[in-house]
């Protein structure tokens, strides 16, 4: 089983699929082929997951080949629990996005098959970025994946697409280039002639150096995540991107930032991470509250969702930097859940916008009456956005706050106010779009069609099922997170009162 290069196969299938799709002449065939390829990747990813043993070696399905010996760079991929669930997230979201984007690319006079080919390229890179266990390889994917997304936003997005695409690219590139300096310096300081992640753990000992390198990595990840105050590219990018691309952007691409913090910032530079914790936690808390408040004030549905994500990313970074098992596992789970939750929110919003042709909340009203299914899906998506217990997002948010409280009570308390604010931004948006008298402009609106139901149903099912049974995911995540925290050399604070073993 382990001899099969699963990860390479996953990427290979996507890339070959992308090549194939780009050569197809028939748009419809291209869509079907893309769907087929992405489903194949999903099946393979699921099979791979089944074969993963959570309590076995930390990194499994490892492949290591020299790539550029002069630079000490390897093609080294492997997954631990954290990477695995994120790859799974990508594999699940892509076919759904393909299905959801069926007609998105047709609105402009742009090439439909290019859009779908880009999607598959992006999928390969998303898998690669999570699977890379070579820091340099990670960096390569980290930067390279900007390009397909850039084209997806720029070519297929809304009216302000060029501005948004350029802002997205330059912002990310700026952070990425700073990280490049840190990557180079890491190689030199560690002096291992290798970029392999396991070899680099604990390699940087000098505290000052650690701090500088940490900053180099962290700024890039903070921009990617995005953390307050370097978040302003996200609302523009997400609002202008086609709904499908927005899902992948916010659902997966941004997770690379938080994933990077957990994997690289913490494990490679544990002392610096601890040194930076107060600031990061403070920024996270600000992000939670600020993102939520600004979300309340938005008039554009997609921008609103984008700001909610900024708030949610505050939770994730807070969980990562709280450095307790519960919080870090929660943060990892949050990454997955947020992908599903924001995914379905963006997609349903996309369906809504596609019908009416406007992103402005004010242009809607009373949709529930004419399109109850659409409204229902929107409501469930929204409720998952406000972390309603019983939906998957609750589990992760709860774990993050619970775990953070163990070490940083006050930030956790302030962060918990996000729970109240979330109710306001979600329900107010829902009220303004779906409730009240039916606006004339939406009176003729059609309810979800068969394809759209197939888009929404799996995500909602996942959100509900994971809301009640998060254990399968947590069982995969927990051992990996524990190992990470061992490398960071932190232990969870013990409860104040020693409880007798339960009856």
């Amino acid at each position, binding site marked *: 089983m382990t001899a099969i290069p699963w990860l390479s196969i996953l990427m290979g299938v996507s890339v070959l699929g992308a090549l194939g799709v780009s050569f197809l002449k028939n748009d419809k065939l291209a869509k079907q082929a893309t769907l087929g390829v992405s489903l194949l990747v999903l099946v393979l990813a699921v099979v791979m997951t089944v074969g993963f043993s959570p309590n076995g070696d930390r990194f499994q399905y490892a492949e290591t080949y020299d*790539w*550029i*010996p*002069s*630079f000490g760079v390897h093609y080294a991929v492997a997954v631990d629990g954290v990477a695995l669930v994120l790859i799974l997230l990508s594999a699940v979201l892509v076919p759904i996005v393909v299905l959801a984007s069926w007609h998105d690319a047709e609105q402009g*006079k742009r*090439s439909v098959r290019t859009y779908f080919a880009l999607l598959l390229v992006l999928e390969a890179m998303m898998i690669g970025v999570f699977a890379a266990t070579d820091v340099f390889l990670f*960096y*390569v*994917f980290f*930067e*390279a994946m*900007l*390009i397909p997304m*850039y*084209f997806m936003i*720029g*070519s297929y997005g809304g009216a302000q*697409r*060029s501005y948004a*695409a*350029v802002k997205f*690219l*330059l912002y990310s*590139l*700026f952070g990425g*280039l*700073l990280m*490049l*300096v840190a990557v*180079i*310096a890491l*190689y*030199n300081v560690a002096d291992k002639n290798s970029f392999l992640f396991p070899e680099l753990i604990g390699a940087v000992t000098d505290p000052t150096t650690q701090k500088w390198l940490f900053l180099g990595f962290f700024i890039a990840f903070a921009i990617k995540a995005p953390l307050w105050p370097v978040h302003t590219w996200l609302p523009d990018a997400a609002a202008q991107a086609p709904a499908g691309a927005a899902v992948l952007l916010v659902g997966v691409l941004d997770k690379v930032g938080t994933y990077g913090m957990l994997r690289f910032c913490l494990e490679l530079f544990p002392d610096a991470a601890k040194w930076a914790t107060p600031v990061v936690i403070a920024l996270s808390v600000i992000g939670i509250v600020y993102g939520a408040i600004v979300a309340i004030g938005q008039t554009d549905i997609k921008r609103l969702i984008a700001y909610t994500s900024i708030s949610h990313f505050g939770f994730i970074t807070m969980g990562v930097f709280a450095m307790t098992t519960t919080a870090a596992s929660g943060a990892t789970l949050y990454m997955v859940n947020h992908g599903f939750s924001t995914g379905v929110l963006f997609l349903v919003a996309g369906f809504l916008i596609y019908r009416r042709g406007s992103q402005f909340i004010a242009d809607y009203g009373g949709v529930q009456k004419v399109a109850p299914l659409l409204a229902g899906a929107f409501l469930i998506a929204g409720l998952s956005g406000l972390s309603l217990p019983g939906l998957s997002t609750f589990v992760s948010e709860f774990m993050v706050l619970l775990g953070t409280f163990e070490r940083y009570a006050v930030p956790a308390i302030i962060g918990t106010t996000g729970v109240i604010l979330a109710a306001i931004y979600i329900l107010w948006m829902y009220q303004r779009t779906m409730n009240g008298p039916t606006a004339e402009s939406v009176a003729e609106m059609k309810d979800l069609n068969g394809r759209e139901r197939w888009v929404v149903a799996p995500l909602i099912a996942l959100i509900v099922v994971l809301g009640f049974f998060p254990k399968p995911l947590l069982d995969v995540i927990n051992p990996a997170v524990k190992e990470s925290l061992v490398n960071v050399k932190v232990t969870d604070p013990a409860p104040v009162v020693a409880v007798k073993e339960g009856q």
Partner: protein
Amino acid sequence: MITAPTIEYFALAPLLIIFGAAIIGVLVEAFAPRYLRRAVHVPLTLLSLVGAFALVILQTIRGVPTTPAAMGSVAVDGPTLFIWGAILVLSFVSVLLINDEEQFVPSAAAVPGSAEEEKAITEGAAHTEVYPLALFAIGGMLLFPASNDLLIMFVALEVMSLPLYLLCGLARRRRLLSQEASVKYFLLGAFSSAFFLYGTALLYGFAGTVDLAGIREALATAGGTETLLLVGTAMLGVGLLFKIGAAPFQAWKPDVYQGAPTPITALMASGTLVAAFGAVLRVFWVALGNDSWNWQPIMWGVAALTMVVGSILAITQTDIKRMLAYSSIAHAGFLLVGVMAVGEAAQNALALSGLLFYLVTYGITTVGAFAVVTMVRDPGGEAWHLSRWAGLGKRSPKLAGVFAFFLLAFAGIPLTSGFFGKYAVFRSAVALGQGWLTGLVVLAVVASAAAAFFYVRVIVLMFFSDPSADGPTVVTPSWATSTVVGFSAFATVALGVFPQPVLDLAEKAAKSLFVQ
């Protein structure tokens, strides 16, 4: 008591072949009938380049000489051979671009728009002198970085530059611009070479010799504080920095790159830059290698200014060739970072290999980019204004895609050769472990981020804007142009994914460093 000088003919063979072919070219101009000239020149030029390249390969295989040739005046060492190889390859593809009658004026002597010119056009006249001129320039380029004394370097500089001055003025379209570029390039080039020469004179006064090794020895004994030395190196530096287009000596570059016929721009932006950097390295590392703490701070300022000026001024350019010229300035700034990364032998080898690799990747991508520029045409010639490029991605997606790819390579996005080029150079700079140089690397990456803006802007124009109704046509490329574009694109991808073979070569070349 003069002993007859020894000449290592084998080592110098590539040079001799190029110059020989150039002289044959002149003879062809003189004696061959007009209709035959072209048919002779093209194969002659290409074959001589191939032959020279083959000899470079052969020498590499037979082992790199460890002593300078021609009585110590020409150093054919590892880096030289690598640079030669690079220049020959870049020249070869540039010559393929030059092989386009549409690019050159039928009769340079005819006043633009005059009846004379009409006549020349209808007669199908052509300045086939461009081939031998180009060969002379290429010969100069080969000699320039190989010169082991400042006199040879000066001569090589002039041999390289003089034909280029002429070539710049031979554009078929927009002749006023072309001639202006030629005059500017000539006057400024001559001006700067006067500085070079004056610097040489002062160093000669300081060291009693113009031999690079001799200057190095003199430095070792005399220390680095003599006025002659300091002012001399400054003057010498002006001449060299002018050639690579470092700020504040960059002003000629945009004007000349824009006005010159595009194939010549390609040759200058690739071959000349490589040659000039080779010379910079040789002077600063060999002659002034023991004096690095004296010139590093100044180079720091120059590099910083260069990358900032290049990146920032490029942002608001509206002419594609001018924009690429500013981009070239910015890249020169990035390359200078590597020039400063000197230390012990291993560090030097690291920096040198990085620079060599960067030069190759940048040169190839640049030629490819200019090749694409030659293909996008309005009725009045190439479409230089960026607004004309709007919607090109819709009109001819493949060409636009390739061009976008080149731009991404310039921006240094991973999985393109440009990324590894930058990486290799920055790596060597960080490896020095000095805060001031690492700081410069940080500045460089910030400048790269700013520079990315204008590359991305072109992509935005090509892909995200809708094409105008009367947009430029994309000519069906000749086999030569397609070869150039194809080769450049392939190399940009290949070196972006598997840079190791070329890295190996660069490392091997850099290992022995420059002969002293």
